[in-house]
C-alpha cells in the first residue's frame, strides 16, 4: 500500500529534479557557446588595440605577442605629430559630410513623408511608386553618371560632391510616411481651423511628434556616412579633402612594414564610433531592428 503511493511522488520529484538539471545544463551550454562567439568577436579588436601599443619590432615578431612587452605610445605620437597627416582636418571632413547629409535627409524625409501620409494630390501614387523604385536601384548603377556630372560641375575633390546626391533619401521618406500616418488628422485639422499655416503645422506640430524616428534615422544615417568608402574614394582624389576611411587606406599603403603604426591609426579611426555606440547602444540597436536598414 505504502509502496504503491510512494511511487508517483518519487517519480515526480525525480522528473522535477531532472528537468532542473537539464535547464542548468542548457543554460550552461548556451553561455559557453555564446562566450566562444563573443571571444571570436572581441579578439580582433583586442589585438588591434594591443598591437597599437607595441614597438614596431615587436609587432613584426614571429610568433606574435599578445600583450605588448614594451608598452609604448610612440605610434600614437607619431601619427598625431605627422605634419602630412592632419588628423583633425580629416575628422572635420568626415563630420561635416555626415552632419550635413543627416540634416538634409532628416528635413526632406520628414517633410515629404508627411506630404505622402496626410495630403491627397493628383499623381501621388505615381510619385510614391517612383520613390520606391529608386530605392531598389543600387548605387553602382548611378555612380558613373553621378561622377561625370560632378566632373562637369567641377565638384571633384570638393566635399559638396558628397552632399548633392544625398539630399533626398527614398528610404527615409518611406519610413517617415509610416510614422506620419499614425498622427491624428484631427490634431492637424484643429490647428488649421485655428489658423496655423501649413508650414507652421509641419514645423510646430508634425516635427516634434517625429522625435524618435528622426533620432533613429539620424543615428543610422550618421553611421552610414561616417563609414562610407566607395563614393568618397571616387570623389575625393586629393588628400586634404578626404574622409577618414579613405585616409585610412591611404595611410596603410604609405606605411607598409609598420603594422604597429597602422593599427594605431585604425584605433584612432575606429574607436570613436564604438565609444559612442557604448553609450547609445540600446537606441542604436533598436533603430537597426526597427528599420532593417544598414
Amino acid at each position, binding site marked *: 500500500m505504502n509502496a504503491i503511493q510512494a511511487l508517483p511522488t518519487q517519480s515526480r520529484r525525480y522528473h522535477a529534479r531532472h528537468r532542473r538539471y537539464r535547464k542548468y545544463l542548457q*543554460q550552461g551550454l*548556451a553561455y559557453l557557446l*555564446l562566450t566562444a562567439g*563573443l571571444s571570436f*568577436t*572581441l579578439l*580582433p*579588436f583586442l*589585438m588591434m588595440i594591443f598591437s597599437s601599443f607595441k614597438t614596431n619590432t615587436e*609587432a*613584426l615578431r614571429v*610568433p*606574435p605577442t599578445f600583450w605588448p612587452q614594451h608598452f609604448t605610445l610612440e605610434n600614437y605620437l607619431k601619427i598625431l605629430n605627422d605634419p602630412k597627416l592632419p588628423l583633425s582636418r580629416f575628422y572635420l571632413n568626415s563630420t561635416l559630410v555626415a552632419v550635413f547629409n543627416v540634416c538634409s535627409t532628416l528635413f526632406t524625409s520628414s*517633410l515629404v513623408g508627411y*506630404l505622402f501620409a496626410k*495630403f491627397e*494630390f493628383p499623381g501621388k501614387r505615381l*510619385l510614391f511608386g*517612383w520613390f520606391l523604385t*529608386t530605392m531598389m*536601384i*543600387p548605387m*553602382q*548603377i*548611378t555612380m*558613373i*553618371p*553621378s*561622377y*561625370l556630372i560632378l*566632373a562637369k560641375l567641377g565638384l571633384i575633390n570638393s566635399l559638396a560632391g558628397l552632399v548633392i546626391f544625398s539630399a*533626398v533619401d527614398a528610404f527615409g521618406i518611406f519610413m517617415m510616411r509610416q510614422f506620419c500616418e499614425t498622427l491624428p488628422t484631427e490634431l492637424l485639422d484643429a490647428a*488649421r481651423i*485655428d*489658423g*496655423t*499655416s*501649413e508650414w507652421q503645422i*509641419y514645423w510646430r506640430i508634425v516635427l516634434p511628434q517625429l522625435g524618435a524616428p528622426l533620432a533613429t534615422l539620424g543615428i543610422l544615417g550618421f*553611421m552610414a556616412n561616417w*563609414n562610407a*568608402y*566607395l563614393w568618397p574614394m*571616387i570623389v575625393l582624389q586629393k588628400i586634404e579633402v578626404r574622409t*577618414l*576611411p579613405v585616409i585610412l*587606406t591611404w595611410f596603410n599603403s604609405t606605411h607598409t612594414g609598420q*603594422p604597429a603604426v*597602422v593599427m594605431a591609426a*585604425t584605433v584612432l*579611426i*575606429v574607436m570613436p*564610433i*564604438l565609444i559612442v555606440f*557604448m553609450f547609445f*547602444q540600446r537606441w542604436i*540597436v533598436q533603430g*537597426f531592428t526597427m528599420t*532593417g536598414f*544598414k
Partner: protein
Amino acid sequence: MTSLAIRKKNVPSRPRGGLAVAKLRFVTGVTVPLLLYESLAIFVLGWAFLLMFYDYSPGRLGGPILGLGGSNPFVGVQNFVEMLTGRSVRAVLFRTSLRNTLIFAFAVLPLNLLITLPLAWLLESISRYKTLYRTIYFMPVLTSSVGVALIWMSMYDPQAGWLNAILRLLGARPVAWLSDPRAGLAGVSVAMWAVILAYLWQDYGYNMVIFIAALQGVPQELKEMAMIDGATSWRIFTRIVIPLIRPTLLFVCVMTMLSSFQVFDIIQVMTNGGPNNQTQVLLLDIYKNAFRYQSMGWAAAESFVLFLIVMIVTVVQMRVLRTSWEY
C-alpha cells in the same frame, strides 16, 4: 483659452480662399522642388542606361550630347555580347568576377544563417547579461569596413599574423592567406575564404540583432505548451519558432544576399582582387574599369548586369520563402 488667442492673432494672415488653397500651396511648395530633384535622378538613370550602349571614355571628347557619339561610338548591345562570348581580357575578367561574386554570396548567406540564427536563439534563452552579449556582438557592424579589413589583414599576415602562429603551433606549414594563388579549400581559393571570414565577422551581429527581435515576438506560451507536451528544444525550434519568424528569415536572406552581391570595401582593401583575380568581384571590376581604365561604357554595362542579377535573386527568394505567411 490659448487656442482662442492664437486664432485672434492669426486670422488676418490666413490665406484668401480658405484651407483648400493653403493645402494646395503647401503641396506645390513641396512637390515642385522634389520633382526637380527627382528629374535629376531620372537624368542620371537615363544617362547610365545610355552609357551601356556606347564605347565611352571620359578622356575622349566625343559627340555634342553628353559626349556620346563621335570618338565615343555607339556600339549597341556589343558590350553585352562581348561579356557573354568575348575572348578579350576584360570579357574573361568579367566572367571571373561574376563567378567570384556568386561564390562569395552563396558562401556568405548559409554561413551567416548558420552562425546568426543559433546564436540569436541561444542569446534569447539565457537569463542574464543579454545586453552585454548583444552589444559586443554588434560592435563589428559599426566598425568602418576599412578598419575591419586592416584588422584582419594583420591577423592574416604570413609572418606575424595570428592564424599562422596557430598553424605553426599545430605543426602545419604557414599559409600566405591573402596572396597565395595555389592554396585552396573546397574548390575555392584561400584568399576568397579569408575575405569571406572577415566579411562574416563584420556582418553577423546585424542579422543576430534582427533575429533576436523576431524571436522575442514568438509567444512564450507556445514554447511552454510544446515543452509540456514533451517536445525537445530542437523540435520547438524547427517546428514552432522557424515558421513563426519566417517573414524575418525572408528579410534577412534578401538583405544579406543584396549586400554580399555588392561587396567592395573589404575586398578592395584586403586583396584588391588578387591573387590572380581570385577575389575580383563584380563591383570591384566595375570600379576598376570605370575609374582606373576609364572605360565607362563597359563598366555601365557591367553594373546593369549586376543590377539584373540582384533583382532576379531577390524575386526568386521572395517567391521561395513567401509561400505561407499567414500565422
